């Protein structure tokens, strides 16, 4: 199947649309926001369900604690702020009051990664997935486009337990099926191939599909898998693909340390040692700039994925 861009949309709007749907369908869903309602696209929920919307002001630690407390009484809180303030700033609150306490809080994080763009490195968190996946019991999800972010937002309300949902700011290709149900922990096969496996998530899934087209033109048959759920990882899907192709490229808008590639490497090292190349930010902070330019400068473009695929195939 060939994926086409149905028109660029931001993944954060997918979150906002999913949250609004949940407002209609699940009266236990409540939303909390730390002064970024517009940025997180939470306005529709706020306007239509004002009694279930909680503005905490610029006080993220308190927001996480309130969310934890609201689960006591059966509420399903969705917190909304930037990824940096959803994780690093409030790590201890998440660790103790949410993860260790096993609370059913959905931590929804926008503006993740380099593609936040012009605001620069203070806001471009590239460590959030690592921070969250290290927490016992935390589910970690990074969907690839508007449709999938909307579906993921709706899906996590039905799952009982803490979830980190990561999405972004810029308008990017929207290419997955709007009617496809989101399954937590289930890999999404986007393109079958036999020469090399490309595993990506978030904004880099579209880059990976473009890279696969470019490779095809060079006679390389690449398989592309969207691992939108970093934890729990779909071990079976990854291993099945590796058995076919014998090598893998992982691609993500995150630090190499602690990201998707690191999870895949752990799986492969302990099961089926396999040549792997990492397309990720390599121990560096980001900087201001246009999202597309930043992806190129930090080695996360489709060209980097193509180069990594060619390199890893030689190592088979």
């Amino acid at each position, binding site marked *: 199947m060939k994926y086409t861009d149905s028109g660029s949309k931001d993944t954060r709007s997918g979150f906002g649309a999913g949250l609004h749907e949940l407002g209609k369908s699940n009266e236990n869903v409540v939303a909390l926001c730390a002064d970024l309602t517009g940025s997180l696209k939470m306005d529709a929920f706020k306007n239509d369900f004002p009694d279930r919307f909680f503005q905490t002001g610029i006080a993220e*630690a*308190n927001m996480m*604690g309130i969310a934890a*407390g*609201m689960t*006591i*009484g059966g509420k399903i809180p969705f917190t909304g702020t930037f990824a940096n303030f959803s994780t690093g700033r409030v790590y201890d609150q998440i660790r103790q009051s949410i993860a260790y*306490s096993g609370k059913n809080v959905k931590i929804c994080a926008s503006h993740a990664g380099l593609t936040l763009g012009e605001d620069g490195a203070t806001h471009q968190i590239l460590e959030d997935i690592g921070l969250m996946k290290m927490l016992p019991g935390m589910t970690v999800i990074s969907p690839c486009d508007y449709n999938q972010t909307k579906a993921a937002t709706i899906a996590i309300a039905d799952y009982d337990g803490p979830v980190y949902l990561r999405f972004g700011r810029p308008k990017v290709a929207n290419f997955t099926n709007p009617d496809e149900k989101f399954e937590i922990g289930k890999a999404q096969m986007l393109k079958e191939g036999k020469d090399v496996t490309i595993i990506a998530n978030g904004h880099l899934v579209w880059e990976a599909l473009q890279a696969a087209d470019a490779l095809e033109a060079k006679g390389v048959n690449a398989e592309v898998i969207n691992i939108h759920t970093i934890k729990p990882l779909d071990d079976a899907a990854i291993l099945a693909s590796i058995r076919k192709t014998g090598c893998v490229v992982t691609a993500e808008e995150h630090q190499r340390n602690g990201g998707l590639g690191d999870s895949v490497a752990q799986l492969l090292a302990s099961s089926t040692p396999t040549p792997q190349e990492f397309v990720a930010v390599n121990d560096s902070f980001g900087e201001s700039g246009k999202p597309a330019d930043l992806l190129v400068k930090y080695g996360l473009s489709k060209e980097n994925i193509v180069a990594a695929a060619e390199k890893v195939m030689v190592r088979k």
Partner: protein
Amino acid sequence: MNDLKGLCSQVRRDIVRMVHAVNSGHPGGSLGCTEYFVALYGDIMKYDAKNFTMDGVGEDLFFLSNGHISPVYYSTLARMDFFPVEELNTFRKIDSRLQGHPTTHEGLPGIRIASGSLGQGMSVAIGAAEAKKLNNDDRTVFSLHGDGELQEGQIWEAAMYAAGNKVDNLICTIDANGQQIDGSTDDVLPMGSIGAKFEAFGWDVMTIEKGNDLDSVIAGLNEAKSRTGKGKPVCVVMKTEMGAGVDFMMGTHKWHGVAPNDEQLAEALAQNPETLSDY
């Protein structure tokens, strides 16, 4: 009331015996808050100990924010039938539900949130109070905080939120014993007037002058309850003495996190007669 005074004595015995048995834990703050816990669970709160549910719908809820005073919490919960008193024997030992700091992780009835890392419990209590409002549940949410704990910034984020949003089904009590690990709160980080700070944040503030006098604590908490539902969160500044009830532990921060030796245990027990059976 006499029963509850006797219970205070027994809870104090439990506290010193628990920390002595594992040579670790926090007796000072636990002893100082004994009357508060006994008043809260013995008189003030409505709850169902035998059928504990996490959601606690239709019940009053309590959150311990300064989790290190777990001995007084565990003793009170056990004595109020949340779990068998014998389980106090397992405090801080491997495979126990009675972790060094309280946690939901091991499923101990009575505990609704983990605490230990300070400053988080007020936010959690606010969340539970907001959920009660959404559920049209008119019961009250109580929380306890150390005075030293107020040095954590999250407390003031929470204080600002609770007043700004009229979370008036919430009674936060501050254990004002003037001590913290490194010394007196005035030496470590002078905080000025705690009550004035909460007042400035928009809370209804009251004081319990004799926080180690059971009658005063019960009267004070009843007064606090009467102030709920009036548009403001209620802050109770409760003056206590760290180590209260064991004379050589009083008036110093030195027993914040130190267990008594055999001799000291005997002395502490002699000052607190057995009223129920020791576990």
